[in-house]
């Protein structure tokens, strides 16, 4: 719940605890997620590296092209970070936007010892530069894999308003581990896209409860697609990132094989389920229909009890 009104200046930790990750801008998320004052941006807005393609469509540009990348510290340890701004063109991947993340991951591969945090907030490929965006995502997926193979931990944090859709969902699937909050969504096709292509009978995009129980943070956690569920605060995501950095191990073929087994098992167990509530029921949750209403602490206890995770299997 929202904190009482501010009295004077708040300390950063206090602000991180009271600031909604979902509501915060990309810059605010980084400022409060990292150790105070530790963030250093690469190619900041003053460099004005805007998209070269938006003017073709007579659309406004943003100086950072909707992504903030740089380095900072988390509990004293160095991290590389990237945060998408979901409000600028839906956080979508364009040429410059994507290339910043590619460069960051390539550096991480060479450094080997410094982890990467990706704060996703994206609808996927930016329509106006679709080919460049799609290719950037392919390059990012490749770069994530190369970095992980070199020993880098790549953690995805998902709780922004644009969710993590399209190619963003595929990149998330390449990460070492994911933390997600209730408003966070992970999917490939967006609700409107499914409805447009397959009809409202297949998916009613205005039924937001349906959207969230199909793609939202709680479902992804119960499926084991995300390893940590956090309350929607920046501090929650900071704690989640620290936890995940602690548990992620080295990458190799065994992980890939384990993931094959994990996903095949999911298909076998839940492939016939029509709705998320059926899946949760099949997972042994009594009153599964109440899951969306559970407060964060109760839900976390429930998810931990179910125990489904992608740890060592992604």
């Amino acid at each position, binding site marked *: 719940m929202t904190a009482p*009104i501010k009295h004077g200046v708040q300390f950063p930790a206090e602000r991180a605890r009271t600031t909604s990750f979902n*509501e915060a801008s990309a810059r605010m998320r980084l400022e409060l997620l990292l150790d105070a004052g530790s963030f250093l941006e690469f190619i900041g807005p003053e460099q004005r590296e805007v998209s070269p393609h938006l003017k073709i469509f007579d659309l406004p540009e943003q100086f950072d092209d909707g992504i903030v990348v740089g380095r900072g510290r988390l509990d004293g340890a160095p991290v590389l970070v990237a945060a998408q701004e979901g409000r600028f063109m839906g956080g979508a991947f364009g040429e410059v936007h994507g290339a910043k993340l590619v460069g960051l991951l390539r550096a991480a591969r060479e450094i080997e010892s410094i982890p990467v945090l990706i704060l996703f907030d994206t609808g996927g490929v930016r329509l106006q530069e679709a080919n460049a965006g799609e290719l950037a995502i392919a390059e990012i997926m490749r770069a994530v894999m190369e970095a992980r193979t070199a020993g880098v931990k790549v953690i995805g944090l998902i709780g922004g308003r644009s969710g993590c859709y399209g190619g963003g969902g595929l990149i998330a699937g390449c990460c070492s581990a994911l933390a997600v909050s209730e408003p966070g969504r992970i999917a490939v096709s967006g609700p409107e896209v499914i409805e447009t292509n397959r009809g409202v009978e297949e998916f009613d995009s205005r039924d937001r409860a349906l959207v*969230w129980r199909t793609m939202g943070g709680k479902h992804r956690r119960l499926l084991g697609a995300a390893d940590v569920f956090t309350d929607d605060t920046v501090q929650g995501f900071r704690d989640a990132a620290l936890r995940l950095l602690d548990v992620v191990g080295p990458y190799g073929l065994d992980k890939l094989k384990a993931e094959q087994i994990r996903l095949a098992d999911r298909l076998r167990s839940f492939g016939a389920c029509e709705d998320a509530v059926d899946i949760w029921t099949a997972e042994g949750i009594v009153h599964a229909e109440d899951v*969306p209403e559970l407060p964060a602490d109760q839900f976390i206890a429930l998810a931990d009890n179910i125990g489904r995770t992608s740890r060592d299997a992604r």
Partner: protein
Amino acid sequence: MLMSIDAETRTTAATWQRHREARDARIEAGSRLARGKIVEARDATRLMEAVIRPGDRVCLEGDNQKQADLLSGALLAVDLAKVHDLHMVQSGVVLPEHLDLFDHGVAKKLDYAYSGPQSARIARMLFGGKIELGAVHTYLELFARYFIDLTPHVALIAAVSADREGNLYTGPNTEDTPTVVEATAFKDGVVIAQVNEIVDRVPRVDIPADRVHFIVKSEKPFFVEPLFTRDPAAITEGQILTAMLAIKGIYAPYGVQRLNHGIGFSTAAIELLLPTFGEKLGLKGKIATHFALNPHPALIPAIEAGWVQQIHSFGSEVGMDDYIRARSDIYFTGPDGSLRSNRAFCQTAGLYACDMFIGSTLQIDLQGNSSTVTTSRIAGFGGAPNMGADARGRRHPSEPWLKAGSEADPDSPAALRRGRKLVVQIGETFGDKNVPLFVEKLDALELAEKLKLELAPIMIYGDDVTHIVTEEGIANLLLCRNAHEREQAIRGVAGYTDVGRRRDRNAVELLRQRGVIRRPEDLGINPLDADRSMLAARSIKDLVRWSGGLYAPPSKFRNW
């Protein structure tokens, strides 16, 4: 002679109950389709044809929120040879079918109050001559005319359940039903109700059975729209700033306790600032304690924080049922525990028992007249003009009322001076798509010319408006002594709109020195402090948490 007098008296006596006889004939015709009072849904159209006569005045409910959708569909399907040229008298023109009736020729004339979602189409049909317009009313005004010259011959109403005798339970959305039934049933009209279910015993009797002639069970619950839910996530910093100004610059100094809020985001921001900003100002218990108001979800934090003592409602709001039931100290509830709303009573309460109305509008002119009409949309008046008007019949004193009266007329002797209701227009200088709030000439005037209306559709007349609040500050029109001051006071808070930029800077500065205009800094408010972190709830989910899980928002407002 005696013989002839006797004969005349007899014939006269017979003709004095023609209406009752006609009503009985209609009921007789309809009864052939009924078992008791119950008519199958598939026979609903035949019931209409049996009961309704060409040219009848028909009230098709048609409220602000709930809709007798089964009956409107049934009426639309009548044989035009049997039913045509109806005169529709209904407060809400909300469903597409309400206007289809005119396209098909079932109905010809319309008297109404509010057209919300149909505002664009109703404008086109009025321009195209498809509808013969009686008048656009306020709710209270239309209800009044139900009892004078627009009494319905047939009322088609909606309720949650009925028992076999015809007692009706309306559920929390009682709204207009008692008023419509009162006017129809006691003046020889026929009342037909659609219900979601027929039960052995209704939870409470909202409408007694002897006022109900036919019951039709609908397959699906009647349509009801969540009109009063404002997602806190959509409230902007500008709206927060105007809300802060209103609380500190109007609620606090006048000590406004009894009031009505409009449905915009600015008033939602006020509701969400009470437990934070209001608390900090020490205003709890001193302002905003009694409301004439629908059950706004945005008011939940203030209720939970102990600000609100009592709320009477026009209608209900989707998702609020359990919360209301659990907070009967605050709301009006029946013996069954659910909300009892009543639009007519609540409108009266808003008019006579409230010291303030605060709401948004689309256009304000230099005299302070406001309108929600644009050239392509006629949304109707609804209830705002009753809320936002000085009640000339009011006689009881109260602090805000007397203070406003003395500001308006400082020179009259206090004992002979009328008080004034505070009528506050709140909004941002530019609305959606950069459309200015302030204009030199209202679109409503253009519309009146085009439609040859005798009255331009003014929502709130300038002489009723006491304050205008924008992000630029507060204009107190009570303190203006002539038309020029009034105009400059309005220009002074009109920001960068054309109206605002044409202000006389010196005149505005003088008004500011007199306190007629008060800027944020005059009230000790730094616009940079207007931050979303001040809202007691920043999302629908926060409202659910405040309610302890009792508020169950409709799916379209969820992000979980």
